[in-house]
């Protein structure tokens, strides 16, 4: 077995050598039962054959020795079976096997010496044949260990050769026996080499199969992980692309079935005051990478819209999130629009998407039905928050007008010759559109016809919507469709609004008015404070002036509730009274000055006692509204008996 030492098998790892050895060991021990049975049987036959020339005691002792050796070896085999072959015990088992062989061979060697009769030629021949048979038979069994073959052959055949060599006429036979010895030895070696090769091969195969199984299992695990990730991406997209809402929204849209993997995102959500926000986004990246960005974007869009934030703040927040949270190569070409049907306004912020189109129901003066709104901003997530301009463009719309948005998959759809669908074809199609559903259908058909024979990438998403009829009801609050250009905005104007009892009962003019002031004067400015001041002044005029409510009970929970119950009841029953709101705006280089005058039909109040100063520790008393308004205004004064209030607010274009 020394030929299998690691030093001679440089290409094999040591544990493989041990494994091959162990395999050969098990072959040795595996045949031991048969070989020992044959050996014992041979010994008995031998004893019977040669009995007459020998004293009975010697023959009996010899047979007993042979049987004991056989039993001992079988005992070792039982131990071997029980213990198995461990890495360290391979050598030990080989040595124990060698000892067994040596004892067995010693028995046969003894037989040769014992039974050799220099006179009886027949007996000599019988002995030669028997011993040769034993030697030849042992080869097959012992080949797994070449030293064992050597020991067996030497101890059985060499004494016989020696015996013949001592007689002058036996020299030829001795040479023959030595020749037989050599042949047997070489056969033993050949057998051994074959066995060893087979063992290596078997071991190699076993490992190969093991490795293959391992790789297959790893591959399977990786594949199921990949599947799980796809599944995850799909479910994330399904969750953030609320198709239910889309379907309920009356939008006509085409959303590619692969949207989860090409990063197209279409969202729609309603503002609390009825405006509708729609976002179409096209993320760089695919699958899970794209949904990484889609999650925060959708989250911000949906929740901020629901909470009533204006479009520009939503744009800013999504950009901030994507810019700070995503790697630089992941961003989102997106267009956000706000459809404000009640005020006939469309606000568009287009960052990196193809042009959005406004398709008018009627021809305008300049005879253009289709107005493109080009992207004038970079995609979301590219610019740092303080560099991105988030103010949307504002356009006048009318009931029946159509708005169309698409990702670049539409215009970049190719035909067989490689030509792209292009803007021109799209505009032609848009110009003939009359309603959103028809537009979506005809575009789908046109794209299918155009790309006949080309494998469809299915990475295009588009949406078309028709401005609802409610626009017509209140549309005429604006003198002209289309805002005046920025240079004319913030001009001087005056507005007087008188609300009689029926209007007071139903209408909350404050947000209408501040929206109007904002649109007319500077849409980009934050008019939150105007909203608040006007709200407080209007509340005072309505609640204390017209409804004659007394705030003095408001310092307890129950009083507070009673106050608002009374407000509700008196307002519902109101049939007399009025509030007049007059707004005057003067432009100046820094922004403008807005003067608000409110008059109510009430009997006034002692305004000298009301309106505590800011800076005082708040108490549970009334008058806080007036204090707030006073703090936010540059001037606030009551006139006459207190039923008239005039407040002046200055706004700056940069804030």
């Amino acid at each position: 077995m020394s030929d299998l030492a690691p030093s001679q098998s440089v290409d094999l790892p040591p544990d493989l050598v041990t494994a091959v050895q162990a395999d050969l060991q098990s072959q040795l021990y595996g045949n031991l039962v048969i070989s020992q049975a044959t050996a014992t049987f041979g010994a008995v036959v031998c004893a019977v054959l040669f009995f007459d020339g020998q004293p009975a005691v010697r023959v009996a002792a010899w047979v007993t020795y042979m049987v004991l050796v056989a039993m001992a070896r079988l005992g070792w085999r039982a131990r071997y079976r029980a213990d198995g072959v461990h890495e360290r015990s391979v050598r030990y088992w080989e040595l124990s096997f060698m000892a067994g062989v040596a004892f067995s061979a010693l028995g046969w060697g003894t037989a040769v010496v014992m039974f050799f009769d220099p006179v009886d030629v027949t007996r000599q021949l019988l002995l030669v044949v028997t011993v040769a048979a034993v030697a030849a038979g042992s080869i097959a069994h012992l080949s797994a260990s070449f030293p064992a073959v050597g020991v067996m052959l030497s101890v059985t055949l060499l004494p016989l050769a020696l015996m013949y060599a001592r007689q002058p006429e036996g020299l030829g036979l001795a040479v023959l026996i030595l020749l037989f010895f050599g042949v047997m030895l070489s056969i033993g070696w050949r057998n051994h080499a074959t066995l060893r090769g087979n063992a290596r091969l078997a071991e190699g195969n076993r490992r190969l199969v093991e490795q293959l199984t391992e790789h297959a299992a790893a591959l399977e695990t990786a594949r199921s992980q990949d599947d799980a990730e796809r599944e995850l991406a799909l479910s994330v997209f399904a969750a953030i692309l609320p198709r239910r809402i889309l379907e309920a929204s009356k939008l006509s849209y085409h959303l590619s079935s692969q949207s989860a993997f090409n990063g197209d995102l279409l969202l729609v959500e309603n503002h609390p005051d009825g405006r509708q926000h729609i976002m179409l986004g096209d993320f760089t990246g695919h699958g899970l990478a794209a949904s990484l960005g889609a999650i925060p974007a959708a989250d911000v869009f949906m929740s901020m819209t629901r909470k009533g934030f204006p479009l520009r703040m939503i744009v800013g927040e999504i950009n901030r999130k994507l810019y700070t949270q995503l790697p630089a190569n992941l961003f989102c070409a997106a267009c956000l629009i706000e459809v404000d049907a009640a005020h006939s306004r469309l606000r568009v912020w287009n960052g990196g998407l193809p042009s959005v189109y406004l398709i008018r129901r009627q021809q305008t003066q300049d005879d253009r039905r289709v107005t493109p709104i080009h992207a004038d901003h970079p995609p979301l997530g590219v610019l740092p928050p303080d560099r991105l301009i988030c103010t949307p463009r504002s356009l006048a719309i009318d009931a029946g007008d159509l708005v169309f948005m698409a990702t670049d998959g539409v215009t970049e759809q190719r035909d067989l010759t490689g030509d792209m669908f292009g803007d021109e074809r799209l505009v032609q199609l848009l110009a003939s559109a009359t309603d959103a559903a028809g537009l979506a259908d005809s575009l789908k058909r046109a794209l299918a016809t155009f790309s006949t024979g080309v494998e469809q990438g299915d990475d295009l998403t588009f949406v078309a919507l028709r401005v609802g009829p409610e626009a017509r009801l209140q549309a005429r609050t604006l003198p002209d469709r289309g805002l005046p250009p920025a240079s004319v905005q913030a001009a001087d104007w005056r507005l007087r609004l008188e609300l009689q009892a029926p209007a007071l009962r139903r209408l909350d003019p404050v947000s209408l008015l501040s929206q109007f002031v904002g649109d007319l004067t500077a849409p980009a400015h934050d008019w939150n404070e105007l909203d608040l001041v006007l709200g407080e002044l209007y509340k005072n005029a309505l609640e204390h002036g017209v409804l004659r409510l007394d705030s003095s009970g408001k310092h307890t929970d129950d009083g507070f509730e009673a106050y608002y119950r009374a407000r509700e009841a008196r307002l519902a029953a109101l049939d007399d009274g009025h509030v007049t709101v007059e707004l005057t705006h003067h432009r100046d280089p820094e922004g403008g000055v807005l003067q608000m005058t409110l008059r109510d039909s009430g009997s006034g109040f002692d305004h000298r006692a009301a309106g505590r100063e800011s800076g005082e520790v708040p108490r549970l008393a009334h008058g806080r509204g007036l204090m707030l308004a006073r703090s936010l205004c540059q001037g606030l004064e009551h006139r006459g008996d207190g039923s008239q209030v005039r407040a002046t607010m200055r706004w700056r274009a940069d804030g």
Partner: protein
Amino acid sequence: MSVTACVSAAGEVVEIQIVGRFDFSLQKAFRATYRDCPPGMVYRVDLSGVDYLDSAALGMLLLLRQHAGEVKQDVVLVQPTPSVAKILRIANFHQIFDVDQA
């Protein structure tokens, strides 16, 4: 516009979250969040989703403070947006409420 409230596991902190316009229309819902709470609770009013807050809302916060026992630390105003923070400052609410800007 909504008001939601939840009580912490230990039962000592009431988290009240207000979203949208905080004005008198929320009065009933807001009061319902604390009217059945025993004394000794801490109230955290999350204002991060509020974009408009008027004098009626200020009054409602004062009533909550009264219910909580008029201890400054017992009512915490959490993350007011800049415009809301300005109103709170004008009204001097930082003197009687804990305002948690973090």
